């Protein structure tokens, strides 16, 4: 029996997200009080006489903190929904968004971009393209063997594709200039939201939100796909098309997250598990909640990484450090949601 209705869960998690986002806008090396933020928002929305503080706030909030807050939410939501979709599709609790090699491919693409060009947009474009190429390779390998359970071959294809692009990434690291390019690549791979700028974030928010929204609307299919292909087909689901669309949407969302912030692990793995423990496995509620809580989680982690130490900790390291103990607890209680 459910004690809290779906609308309560969604409302509660949205309030949590807004709370964390507000704190994240206020806290930092230059602390802003809540009153200042409210009067600044009034000034921005309603107009009126401004003063010099607002120019400074323009700089801090609009140029620095807001893009970062939005990016953290978008990436957390992307990774968590992709992870939830893949866990249902592959009927496996250990599956994360990188299962089909998208993160390895995008990481290789980004490193290649850093090696051959000084322009940041080249890095981003190559990251996005190679994210898709890696998933394409996985699907190609997965479809070479017929007459077998296609999802297992697909996962194997992903493992092979991921290893391939990890090896190619090592080649890039090996030939990169150890004093300039190599540190950039290594730092990038640790994951960081420091590159966020408002126009870039707004630009990628469109495809990211469309992908996240698409995956949320496909929740009813994820329920059925988890029963196995034959049962799903007999219930009237076009299994191949649903799977392909889900893979495309998850790949868009995941490679864009690498494009903007490098490799951020664990979010896509643990958030769906936590939600499933709280509300049960039905993907119609699991998908939107994963998006909201995934966004809130990454934003919280990023806020901590900005504030906790005098030196900023790369967020990928922090999500792993938080993710590992949480995952152990989740596995211990996994019976609550998995059979």
């Amino acid at each position: 029996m459910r004690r809290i209705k779906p609308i309560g869960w969604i409302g509660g998690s949205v309030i949590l997200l807004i709370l964390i986002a507000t704190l994240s806008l206020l806290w930092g090396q230059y602390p802003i009080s809540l009153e200042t933020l409210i009067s600044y928002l009034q000034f921005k929305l309603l107009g009126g006489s401004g003063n010099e503080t607002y120019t400074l706030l323009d700089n801090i909030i609009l140029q620095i903190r807001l893009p970062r807050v939005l990016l953290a939410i978008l990436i957390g939501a992307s990774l968590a929904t992709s992870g939830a979709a893949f866990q249902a599709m592959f009927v496996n609790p250990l599956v994360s968004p990188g299962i089909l090699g998208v993160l390895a491919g995008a990481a290789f693409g980004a490193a290649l971009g850093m090696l051959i060009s000084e322009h940041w947009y080249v890095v981003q474009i190559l990251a996005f393209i190679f994210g898709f190429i890696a998933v394409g390779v996985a699907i190609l390998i997965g479809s070479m063997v017929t007459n077998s359970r296609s999802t297992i071959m697909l996962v194997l294809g992903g493992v092979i594709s991921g290893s391939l692009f990890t090896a190619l990434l090592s080649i890039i690291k090996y030939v990169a200039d150890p004093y300039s390019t190599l540190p950039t690549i290594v730092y990038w791979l640790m994951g960081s939201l420091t590159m966020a700028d408002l126009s870039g974030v707004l630009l990628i928010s469109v495809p990211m939100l469309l992908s996240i929204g698409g995956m949320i609307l496909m929740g009813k299919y994820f329920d059925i796909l988890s029963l196995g292909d034959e049962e799903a087909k007999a219930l009237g689901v076009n299994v191949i098309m649903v799977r392909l669309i889900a893979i495309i949407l998850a790949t868009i969302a995941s490679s864009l997250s690498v494009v903007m912030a490098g490799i951020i692990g664990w979010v896509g793995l643990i958030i769906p598990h936590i939600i499933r423990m709280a509300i049960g496995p039905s993907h119609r509620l699991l998908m939107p909640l994963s998006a909201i809580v995934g966004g809130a989680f990454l934003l919280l982690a990023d806020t901590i990484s900005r504030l906790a130490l005098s030196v900023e900790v790369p967020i990928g390291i922090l999500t792993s450090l938080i993710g590992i103990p949480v995952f152990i607890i989740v596995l211990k209680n996994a019976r609550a949601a998995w059979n």
Partner: protein
Amino acid sequence: MELNPIISVNDLHFSYPKRPVLEGVDFTLNRGEIVSLLGPNGCGKSTLIRLILKLIHPSQGEIWLDNKTIDRYSHREIAKHIAYIPQYNNVPFNYSVLEMVMMGRVAKHGFFVAPSAKDKEVAYESLRQIGIENLTYRTFGQLSGGQKQMVLLARALTQEVNTFIMDEPVSGLDYGNQIRLLELISDLARQGYTFLKTTHYPDHALMVSSRVVVMNEGKIIANGKPEEVITSSMIREIYGIEADLINYNRHTWCIPTFSKGVL
């Protein structure tokens, strides 16, 4: 009764590499029938069902569903004609019974359309019709085998079709649940639903069938009224054991002859 075919199968062949499974099967399911497919392990019963549901493709032959061949239907369209009740199995996630039953409604909606309040109402009504509304909020994975099978029947009802295909409906159920499930099937059949089910038990075929189709080694070897088809010689031929058919209480029962003598 006037014959009104729903499914017709003509000269159907299917083979795995180097191993033929079906060799020239002709078969018809008419509206209002309960047809039992009887035969030993590996005779091709389940393969025939999977071919009819378009889960696998024949190497030769045709399958007709309501005046169109099956390859002209999408899975979604087939689900609007036939509900499939698989052998109950474990689901990876702990869905509630209501969530499981609601899944039967998926073919009714477009790609990005969420289920509505009406779908929920249909699900409740189906659970009532099977008589398991007390299970609505239980976890599917924690039910007994018999309860799971009844939930899957309720899910089939939400598809709002007249034809049900069941693969070994009683397999793995205890004795009481086997009989209760067979009674439920005959109740639904009296309400006008058409059934095609596979079975391992000649007894069950005698109890709940209007027609029995016997398969052996990929061919149909007998097809007709249960009492005419299920005979001692047929049991000997397909199962390799002796059995007596006796009349008791206006009904024919199949009693195996235990060759070592009853202890």
